[in-house]
């Protein structure tokens, strides 16, 4: 956190400052929506390695970070991108080829883990996963846990309800808090101090941000401080949690940003196709990521015609009648 009045910076600087080899991060968004894709691409471009990534169902962003070779450890609930990839393709390959060490949780558990981190407590209880292999099977060994001060000593802990039978509950699962070194989110509006306003679903972005040591926000619109101080019940994250603000139109592209643009079905289908094969994927990386000095260049490459096709209808917040087959 930081209480500065002006935290605006450029994306390359923000990533260089906060995203280090081996750091623990989380990214916002859900499957094909509001992933901080510009930041994901910049991390790949800067060739940051050995990241420990916390994800619930972050979909496209997770798959690209894995495909770009930045991830070594992954705590995850779901590696899928909706209809475009029921199981994310580079994720699946990396797990099957033992290129990443993965540990499974549920979506609620990952969200509760961020919430616990944001609340400053070591765990939260739930009834989810009792009796399942989510509890029994660990991805990270006792040794790996013992070697890292950034990992709790157990995956999950089952406990009898100490208020006997209260709420008709006999047992709960305790999920350990996550406190990422850095969380990156993409929002519709932010001001220079870092106040954030998300439109539509917030997913787990708020908890992910508040649980982190540092937060980078990319935003579609950079607003005057005065603007977001009006109707401030619409702001979900106050500036005290934020370290860097980057003004980045289309920062979630090729995923969607409600009220601004839809996901790009053409890009995502093309991605899924290229992701199947290492050689074609290498070409994808070269042309779309390494080949673009920044996100603006990628958007330029996609072209105005396609960008206007996915531009959001102001009433519905998505691109009506977009060809999504």
């Amino acid at each position, binding site marked *: 956190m930081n209480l500065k009045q002006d935290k605006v910076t450029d994306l390359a600087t923000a990533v260089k400052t906060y995203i280090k080899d081996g750091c623990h991060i989380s990214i916002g968004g859900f499957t094909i929506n509001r992933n901080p894709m510009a930041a994901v691409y910049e991390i790949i471009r800067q060739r940051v390695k050995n990241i420990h990534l916390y994800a619930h169902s972050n979909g496209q962003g997770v798959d690209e970070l894995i495909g770009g070779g930045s991830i070594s450890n992954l705590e995850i609930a779901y590696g899928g991108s909706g209809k475009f990839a029921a199981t994310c393709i580079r994720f699946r390959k990396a797990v099957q080829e033992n290129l990443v060490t993965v540990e499974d949780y549920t*979506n609620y558990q990952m969200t509760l883990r961020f919430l616990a981190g944001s609340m400053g407590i070591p765990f939260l209880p739930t009834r989810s996963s009792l009796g399942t292999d989510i509890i029994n099977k660990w991805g990270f060994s006792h040794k790996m846990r013992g070697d890292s001060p950034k990992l709790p000593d157990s995956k999950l802990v089952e406990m009898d309800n100490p208020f006997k039978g209260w709420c008709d509950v006999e047992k709960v699962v305790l999920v350990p808090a996550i406190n990422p070194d850095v969380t990156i989110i993409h929002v519709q509006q932010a001001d220079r101090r870092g106040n954030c306003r998300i439109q539509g679903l917030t997913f787990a972005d708020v908890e992910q941000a508040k649980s982190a040591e540092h937060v980078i926000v990319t935003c579609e619109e950079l607003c005057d401080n005065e603007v977001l101080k009006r109707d401030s019940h619409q702001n979900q994250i106050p500036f005290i949690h934020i370290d860097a603000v980057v003004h980045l139109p289309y920062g979630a592209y090729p995923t969607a940003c409600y009220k601004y643009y839809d996901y790009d079905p053409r890009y995502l289908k093309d991605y899924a196709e290229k992701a199947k094969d290492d050689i074609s994927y290498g070409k994808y990386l070269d042309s779309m990521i390494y080949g673009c000095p920044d996100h603006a260049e990628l958007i330029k490459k996609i072209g105005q015609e396609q960008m206007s096709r996915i531009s959001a209808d102001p009433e519905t917040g998505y691109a009506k009648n977009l060809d999504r087959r």
Partner: protein
Amino acid sequence: MDYTLKEMMTIMAAREIRNSDIVFCGTGISMLAAMAAKNINAPESVIFFETGAIDSRLEEIPLAVGDSRVMYQTSANGGLLDAFATMQNKVTGKHVIGILGAAQVDKFGNLNSTVIGDYNSPSIRFSGSGGGCDVASFVPRSIIFMQHEKRKFVNRLDYLTSPGYLDGPGGRKRAGLPDGGPVMLITNLAVMRFDDITKEMYLSAFYPGVSPVDILEKMEFKVDISRATEATPPTEEELWLLREKCDHQRLIL
């Protein structure tokens, strides 16, 4: 009447949904089943996504539960915390019906959507639980969609991702879970249900043209076929509403 297997499966699920249900949907056919129910037989049912959207006005089919289309004209746009709390909540959770898919199922309706092979070095990796284990843990009723193949109906799951009846009668209670479990499993051949007493899967209905014995051959474990009847195919009206009101863009069908 002319209908596809996908249409048959969708309508089988839709008919199970009641007017007072809050329907937890995933991507694809499960979302379509919820939309079909709302447009056909359960207009007051409430469509609900783990991403936090409740009572979405789905003018177009979302291609993921995070699709912006689920955010349009909801009763509230929250986040994952709100959605899962609604399912775990003692009052609202009792009204939720979950619709799930999986890669493997066992005779007690437990599901694997995580890995084939050893967990730490799997031969096949799937997407993982997502909200599947959560909804299966919390809610009283769920519907499962699967393809009917021997390698999917197994004696022993490679990984138990989402709880059905666990090890049978009383299994959920012993594990600490609330009452619940799958009420039906819909495949490309048949509708399976679970015995009230033994909690074991049985054949409830086979699709026209499919024989119960053929179905048994596509499963590792045996199930009771004595109670099976032929399923009633979609009616003309059901099909029309499904095709024109739910998926006129033919994104799922």
